[in-house]
């Protein structure tokens, strides 16, 4: 679809539901997947709350968009960097997050984890390599 492949990172720093930012930025990720760029997502600060499992919006009558994260693997969006410090500051561990996986076509379709737990310093390095950073 495009001549150049850029490294795109979507920066997620907001909790879900209180504002629409998390949901509408996920919509950008889904549309962007069709453009065959080198895409990754970073979850830091309150953004880590987007991935917490067991979200149930029936009592607030809002759309529960958390299952959409599970579909990202099918869109070839397979690099979800979650900042370790942000989880710890919020009393969370990897166990509190939805398991998100993708099938690796380069490895006989083996199921692999999309969530990569990384330190702040590591995300800073990964951000540094990006061409474009989308913030919402």
């Amino acid at each position: 679809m495009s001549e150049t492949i850029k490294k795109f990172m979507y920066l997620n720093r907001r909790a879900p539901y209180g504002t629409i930012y998390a949901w509408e930025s996920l919509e950008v990720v889904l549309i962007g997947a069709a453009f065959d760029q080198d895409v990754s997502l970073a979850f830091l600060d309150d953004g880590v709350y987007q991935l917490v499992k067991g979200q149930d919006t029936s009592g607030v009558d809002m759309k529960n968009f958390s299952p959409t994260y599970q579909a990202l693997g099918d869109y070839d969006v397979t690099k979800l960097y979650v900042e370790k410090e942000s989880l710890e500051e919020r009393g969370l561990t990897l166990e509190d997050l939805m398991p998100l996986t993708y099938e690796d076509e380069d490895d006989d379709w083996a199921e692999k984890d999309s969530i990569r737990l990384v330190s702040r310093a590591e995300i800073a390095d990964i951000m540094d390599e990006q061409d474009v950073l989308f913030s919402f």
Partner: protein
Amino acid sequence: MSTLHTVNKSPFEKSSLESCLGYAKAGSAVLMYEDAVYGAIKGTAIADKIAAADGVKFFVLGADLKARGVAEDKVAAGIEIVDYSAFVNMAVENDKVQAWV
């Protein structure tokens, strides 16, 4: 690659400036504008953290300082006061812009 980080919220209301400080690498630039200009004032609770950021250059948008009645001599040493055209130049000179919205 060098990055221009932009921050637009008061550090006394939101954590975006602190988050930015955790990520800004040596050689990068941080521009404080809109309500983030309150973070550029000397003697505040955030001033030491800014001063401690090694190798990071700090800038503050003069028009936003002026709008809020913050005199230029209140700005902490080492933070350069710039205008919109310098903001544009910084976006050009760095490889990308990271908005801590």
